[in-house]
């Protein structure tokens, strides 16, 4: 309005018909004070009068009655869409043609300085007393600011709509009855439905678990806010989506309007989680099935996991998160020194952050039994290399230890047997030497005795040095003479099981008797006979084994003048080794020998 002077413009009275002049007179003062632009035109469209505000809005002050200013005082005008408006099409012209009021017509007015404003015009006809149209009044106001606000609001709404429609998170609004009121593209994409297939349906139709959606709606209706509530939705192709729903309800004046649901698709995470859990389960199953005791601890040594084999080995169920360092009840070093838990190999592995190998320890169970084991503690690290715990495997080496012990016993026993045998050989050699008539006789006698001893060893070896059979021992001793004598030898008797010691004694005795018989007795003659028989007598005070050796048909027998080793062995050997009695009878018809030993000492 700069440089513009408003002069209470009124057309010269001569130009205004009298009735109109009178009609306007009383309003003029009032019009000047109104905050809206007001002007009037005559029937011919020429400007009759306008107020201050109208001049301000036009940005100029046209001269009323100026033939160049018709229908409107504005310099230029445009339609709301920006098209230039010929002033002959202005609302005032319209009214003067039709005589009908014009309401809420928007126009853009351009001022001479080029600024534009938006105005809202309301026009009414002016009639004379006869009801004839004599002109019109236009009341217009600046709505530029309101239009701008409206535009901003519209843009804001558009942004919100865009946010809702095109945001990356699936969104929907649901009414109190579960009907889907609105859903965005992300939600439709998530489930594969078109808008028509989805909006308007009940939300429950798309949930895989009815109790879940019922619970969700019940909570929302109750005013609860849901935060990442897990649910499963069914897509159009039938597959299941795992989602987390965050939602609350818009209440207006205490009335449920709609829910606002954010749906987060976690199908991939869920699958990854499930796979991880399944993989963990597999490993757990694997470790559980291992025959070795396995347990884990956290970085502080507290036990976090153990398998059944660990329970079996330690004889107890460790207390998770409380027991430290080892699942065992007590520990010892292999030499029996107590080994405190905080010094055990697992504790060392954790404290020094290194695996421990080749250490042996002994676990004691609560029932007092002990188990030697090899631990394999190994520290565990996270991706950043930080120590997070350790895993330990305890391998029960009881069997190995027992095998070692057995092996040692076996070697000791073998050594003992060899040494005893050597002592026996030493004795045989010594006794043979004392009585030998010549070196040849010594060699022959000693050989015979060693071979007899060796044969008995063979028979015992065949039976793991556990026992031997009396008949087999007897036949083996007599075998060297049997062929020469044909059927001269008879051996009879029930099966008798002999201990190794008694087997050796009988073998040596039979050897001595047979050698003597072959040299001097029945077996030295073609007609000679030898009968060897035995019998177990189980009645009486103590069961006894009676063995009889009877020679006949040999040369006449005379008692020896000097006790040989053989007879000494027979008589004293039976007594010393078997606690029995042996009697040699040098009868002229043939030598006989009666042996009687407690059965308990032979088998």
């Amino acid at each position, binding site marked *: 309005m700069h440089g513009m002077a408003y002069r209470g413009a009124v057309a010269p009275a001569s130009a205004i018909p009298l009735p109109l002049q009178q009609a306007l007179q009383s309003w003029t003062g009032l019009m000047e004070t109104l905050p809206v632009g007001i002007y009037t035109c005559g029937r011919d469209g020429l400007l009759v009068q306008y107020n201050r505000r109208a001049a301000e809005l036009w940005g100029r002050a046209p001269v009323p009655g100026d033939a160049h200013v018709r229908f409107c005082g504005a310099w230029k005008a445009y339609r709301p869409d920006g098209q230039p408006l010929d002033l002959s099409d202005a609302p005032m012209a319209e009214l003067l043609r039709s005589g009908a009021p014009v309401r809420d017509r928007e126009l853009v007015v351009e001022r001479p300085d080029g600024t534009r404003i938006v105005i809202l015009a309301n026009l009414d006809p002016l009639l004379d007393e006869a009801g004839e149209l004599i002109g019109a009044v236009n009341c217009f106001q600046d709505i530029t600011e309101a239009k701008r606000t409206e535009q901003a609001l519209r843009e804001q709404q558009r942004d919100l709509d865009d946010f809702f429609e095109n945001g990356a998170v699936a969104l929907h609004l649901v009414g109190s009855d579960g009907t889907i009121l609105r859903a965005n593209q992300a939600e439709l994409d998530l489930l594969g439905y078109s808008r028509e297939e989805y909006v308007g349906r009940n939300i429950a139709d798309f949930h895989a678990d009815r109790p879940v959606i019922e619970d969700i709606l019940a909570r929302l209706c109750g005013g609860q806010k849901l935060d990442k509530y897990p649910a499963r939705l069914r897509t159009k192709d039938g597959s299941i989506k795992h989602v987390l729903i965050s939602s609350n309800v818009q209440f207006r004046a205490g009335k449920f309007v709609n829910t606002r649901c954010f749906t987060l698709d976690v199908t991939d995470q869920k699958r990854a989680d499930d796979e991880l859990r399944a993989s963990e389960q597999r490993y757990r199953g694997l470790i559980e099935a291992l025959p070795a005791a396995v347990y884990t601890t956290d970085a502080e040594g507290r036990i976090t996991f153990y398998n059944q084999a660990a329970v079996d080995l330690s004889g107890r169920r460790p207390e998770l998160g409380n027991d430290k360092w080892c699942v065992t009840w007590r520990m010892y070093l292999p030499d029996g020194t107590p080994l405190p838990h905080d010094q055990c190999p697992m504790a060392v592995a954790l404290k020094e952050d290194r695996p421990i190998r080749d250490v042996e320890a002994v676990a004691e169970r609560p029932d007092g039994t002990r188990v030697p084991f090899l631990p394999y503690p190994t520290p565990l690290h996270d991706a950043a290399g930080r120590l997070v715990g350790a895993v330990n495997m305890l391998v029960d080496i009881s069997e190995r230890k027992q095998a070692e012990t057995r092996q040692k016993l076996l070697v000791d026993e073998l050594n003992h047997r060899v040494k*005893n045998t*050597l*002592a026996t050989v030493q*004795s045989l050699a010594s006794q043979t030497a004392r009585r030998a008539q010549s070196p040849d006789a010594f060699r022959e006698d000693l050989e015979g005795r060693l071979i007899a001893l060796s044969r008995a060893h063979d028979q015992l070896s065949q039976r793991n040095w556990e026992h031997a059979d009396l008949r087999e021992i007897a036949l083996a001793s007599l075998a060297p003479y049997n062929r020469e004598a044909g059927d001269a030898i008879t051996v009879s008797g029930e099966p008798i099981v002999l201990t190794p010691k008694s087997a050796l004694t009988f073998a040596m005795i039979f050897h001595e008797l047979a050698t003597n018989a072959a040299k001097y007795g029945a077996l030295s003659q073609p007609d000679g006979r030898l009968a060897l028989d035995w019998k177990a007598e189980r009645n009486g005070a103590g069961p006894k084994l009676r063995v009889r050796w009877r020679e006949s048909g040999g040369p006449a027998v005379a008692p020896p003048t000097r006790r040989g080793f053989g007879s*000494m062995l027979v008589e004293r050997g039976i007594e*010393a080794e078997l606690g029995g009695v042996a009697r040699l009878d040098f009868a002229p018809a043939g030598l006989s020998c009666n042996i009687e030993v407690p059965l308990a000492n032979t088998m």
Partner: protein
Amino acid sequence: MSGGKVALEGLRVFVVEDEFAVLLLVEDMLVQLGCAVVASVSRIAPALEIARSGAFDAAVLDINVAGEAIYPVVEILASRNVPIAFSTGYGAAGVAAAWRAWPILQKPYSAEQLAHALLQAIARVAALGR
């Protein structure tokens, strides 16, 4: 050897050995050393009897006698201050720790080793008695 023989001349010895051949050998060796074998048995029961009441100057004892350990006999003999020499196929490991201070003969052994063991046992008793 000759010194041993002189020192052992007339020594009365008690022998426990369940293997007859070895018993004969030990007896022969002792006779050879000038000792007198006053008793030789092959079972624990008679050995206990003789250990309690027999009169002798030394004992040569097998460890495992027909399946029974010799130690009850050893205890009696030790209480009577009888010098003891063990004779075993197992060697020192076969003798109970409590009795390992006595000389131990590992079978087979010579008469000389037997003499040495007996002299050692006699010396030990003498030392203990002082």
